[in-house]
């Protein structure tokens, strides 16, 4: 299946991909980001239960320096 990760298409070969697993595979500490799935914010305690579907839009957002 294919998802849109931070605006870029990404092919997922793993079956039953979840938000938690995606973060783990990308090497992103879960506590350092906020996750939006199809424009809905996913609470951290739901990462493991949030399965990704074909064409899902996933945004991984974090704080950066800014004024």
């Amino acid at each position, binding site marked *: 299946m294919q998802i849109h*990760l*931070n*605006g870029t298409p990404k092919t997922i070969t793993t079956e039953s991909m979840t938000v938690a697993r995606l973060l783990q595979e*990308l*090497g*992103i*500490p879960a506590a*350092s*980001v*906020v996750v*939006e799935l199809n*424009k809905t*914010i996913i*609470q951290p305690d739901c990462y493991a239960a949030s399965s990704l579907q074909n064409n899902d839009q996933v*945004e*991984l*957002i*974090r*704080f*950066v*320096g*800014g*004024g």
Partner: protein
Amino acid sequence: MLTDMLTIGGHTFNSRLFLGTGKFSSSAVMKEAIAASGTEMVTVALRRVDLNNPEDDIMIALDRKKCVFLPNTSGARNAEEAIRLAHLARAASGSSWLKLEVTPDPRTLLPDPVETLKATAELVRAGFIVLPYMNADPILALRLQDVGAAAVMPLGSPIGTNQGILTAFQIEIIIDQARVPVVVDAGIGAPSHAALAMEMGADAVLVNTAISVAGDPVAMARAFAQAVEAGRTAFVAGMGSRGKQAQASSPLTGTLATDLGFLA
């Protein structure tokens, strides 16, 4: 002056210098500049994670016990985008502080007054502590405080220009009318600009570029802290009024000319 504290959104601040965290050369320099500035409020932005640097996290360098985090909605071009970013910011920070920025034109980065007012009203209803970045428009400042803004943040000049307080006349009116704190934001390029804003009666200033891109950001942070303190102290002390005609500082009686007459 321990009694001269600033309160915004129920939080009390000793320092009236707020610091932006953009454009520092490294996290280490930023951290040191924050310490040197004495600030108790720092702004941060939200962006997509750089998937090539998955562990690059600014929060590691910031001490949330010492500073209030003020996430901004930079990048938002309208109220809808700003509100989406606000909710992401609240989820990421666990707090409701928000610097609302709606800047549709990347060339000027001037704030959209209509969308800013709309987003402020909605975010206040959603429980956010909203500090809207705004043009120095006294009427808009009143409208924003009427819908519940915790403070207003009029610009001195466009973001990152270091042009100083080009909007002094309007900011004076805003300060005169405001029932909420006035934080002069954007364009402050030198400690003297910050001092001027504080002498005018601004409650605080927000500085980023002038410190982060300085030759020595840590020393510049210290200079801004001194300027803000000096300007505030001068405002509280009460400044003398301006005049057009000379007013002698020395007594005009008892001079040699009067008493002896030989020079008259």
